[in-house]
């Protein structure tokens, strides 16, 4: 424990062996000390190596400061020495839960610089993959949020679904987590036979399973007591911090790149953006569940509308983006991803800057943490939705 400062006129009670107990009575009242506590970098609630330094008064958090950077892997610098195909393999890995959406963003940026028209079929498949990736990501957070609140079953249920989805995505892409399926100018290769059937089947299963999560958690009185009104985020604060994705939608702001700046074929599809108004942990969780349903809607539309044709364009051996700069926004599962690509005409980017949703989301966390209880911190961290690799890059 920390040393006790003798106050004038105070009485210090004898403590344990070798040290004074931090209890002091002065002016008839108990003098307490704030306790400094490091949550992380190794802590189960921070999923990864985020560190939150908090000052506690009893169980109430007085100050909170997230310390980021433990997982900095220098992605942006690495990208300067990699050609575009290699970047796609790398970009998979900084937010390992939104692998496909990330590689899509990079490919879109290069294609925009090159003024490439991507074959229709490739664009539809890109949407299909993005939405399945979104569901994969949300399933992960549904499970881990339950786990952090002490409900240990949802995580097993959601991983059961994740396994199934990953299995058929693997049949097309060869990867379970790092798909590396997008290429500048299209996709690596077309879907294998039977993929669409598996996808249709899984979409139907997923709908019923989504109801199971609602049944297991949403109606649960303990769950509601733990999450309703906890970590309520105001829409203006959220916008000020640049919070995006489900965390923003829970506050009532329906900003979604798929609607405001559609890419691929999102403008031909009916994109629904579920919105809640309270901005608390409960709403953030409900938005996640609703987004799975919305993604399933999109997936079914892709099943209906997928055109025939090639998925690739004939590309030169080395892809070189012409000189210039572009900024592409995509709606990643956790929020808006931004890819600022500056090219000097070479085969590697001159600069590749990424805006990642997790980074902005985590900046807002102290606003929610200060004044809440330690137990609520877990409910807040679990529902702000960030991936540490995405924060640090």
């Amino acid at each position, binding site marked *: 424990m920390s040393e006790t400062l003798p106050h004038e006129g105070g009485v210090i009670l004898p403590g344990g062996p070798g040290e004074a107990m931090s209890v002091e009575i002065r002016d008839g009242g108990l003098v307490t000390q704030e306790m400094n506590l490091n949550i992380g970098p190794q802590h189960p609630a921070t999923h990864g190596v985020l560190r939150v330094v908090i000052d506690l008064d009893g169980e109430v958090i007085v100050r909170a400061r997230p310390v980021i950077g433990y997982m900095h892997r220098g992605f942006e610098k690495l990208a300067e020495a*990699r*050609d575009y*195909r*290699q970047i796609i*393999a*790398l970009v*998979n*890995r900084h937010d390992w839960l939104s692998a496909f959406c990330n590689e899509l963003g990079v490919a879109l940026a290069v294609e925009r610089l090159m003024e490439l028209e991507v074959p229709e*079929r490739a664009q539809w498949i890109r949407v299909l993959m993005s939405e399945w990736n979104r569901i994969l990501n949300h399933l992960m957070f549904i499970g881990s949020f339950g786990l952090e609140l002490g409900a240990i*079953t949802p995580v097993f*249920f959601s991983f*059961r679904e994740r*396994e199934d989805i990953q*299995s058929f995505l*693997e*049949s*097309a*892409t*060869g*990867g379970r987590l*790092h798909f*590396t399926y997008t290429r500048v100018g299209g996709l*690596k*290769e*077309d*879907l*294998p*036979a*039977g*993929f*669409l059937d598996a996808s249709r089947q899984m979409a139907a299963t997923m709908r019923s399973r989504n109801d*199971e999560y609602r*049944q*297991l*958690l*949403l*109606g*649960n*009185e*303990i*769950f*509601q007591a733990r999450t309703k009104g906890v970590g309520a985020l105001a829409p203006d604060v959220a916008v000020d911090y640049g919070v995006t994705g489900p965390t923003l939608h829970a506050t009532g702001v329906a900003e979604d790149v798929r609607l405001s700046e559609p890419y691929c074929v999102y403008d031909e599809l009916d994109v629904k953006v579920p919105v809640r108004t309270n901005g608390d942990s409960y709403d953030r969780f409900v938005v996640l569940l609703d987004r799975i349903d919305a993604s399933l809607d999109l997936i079914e539309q892709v099943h209906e509308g*997928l*055109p*025939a*044709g*090639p*998925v*690739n364009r*004939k590309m030169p051996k080395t892809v070189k983006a012409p000189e210039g700069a572009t900024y592409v926004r995509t709606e990643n599962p956790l929020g808006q991803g931004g890819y600022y690509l500056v090219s000097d005409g070479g085969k590697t980017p001159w600069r590749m800057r990424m805006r990642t949703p997790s980074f902005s989301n985590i900046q807002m966390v102290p606003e929610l943490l200060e004044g809440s209880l330690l137990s609520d911190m877990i409910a807040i961290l679990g529902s702000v939705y960030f991936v540490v690799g995405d924060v640090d890059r």
Partner: protein
Amino acid sequence: MAAPSLPGSGLLKGLGLTFKTMLSPATTAQYPHVKPELPPRTRGVIALMEENCTVCMLCAKECPDWCIYIDSSKETVPVEGGRTRTRNVLDRFAIDFALCMYCGICVEVCPFDALFWSPEFEYAEYDIRELTHEKERLREWMDTVPPPPPLEEGAVPPAEIEAGIAAARKEAEEAAAKAKAAAEGGGEPEAEAPQIDEELFARLVAEGTPERAARAKAKAAFVKAQKRREREQGGDQ
């Protein structure tokens, strides 16, 4: 929720779901006892078709984490009635799977179809050095490479594959026509030497190796032996 529900009903609903799950069979796969069925595109391990490799170094150059090690030497090949040619000989081809990030770029860039993905994944080692697979080990993985899956409805096969299929078909037709002509002519058709090491093939089959794998191994052995013969002949002169 439309109507305010009875307090505790949410708790009971959850209890009902876990109870129902308990009664239904579990989805767990008993892994070491039951092997997973992996799709042919799975990126498990990289196999090397050594005979196809021309030491062009594209894979090693394109690898994002530089985990492919290639050593080669030049060798002169005498050509009858002409001047000698030089060609590249592959001395070492190794992939360090401890470094590899399984992106598949090497397989994709290989212009001569020397690298393939195999879904095999059980090659964990206690010593990290063992994870560097030399070309012999990479060649063995070749036996586990599955054929590529057919494509989904509405897909357009890549042009080079289309061309390859057309060429193969044409070749088969020509061969058939030749055989037919030979049969009609009554003469003995020129027996095509089976390009495999018959002895090894027989032994492997006897040992219980699947015929396809055995044939592939025997073929590799034959090609190797032939190359050695060529080299020896070259050395003699």
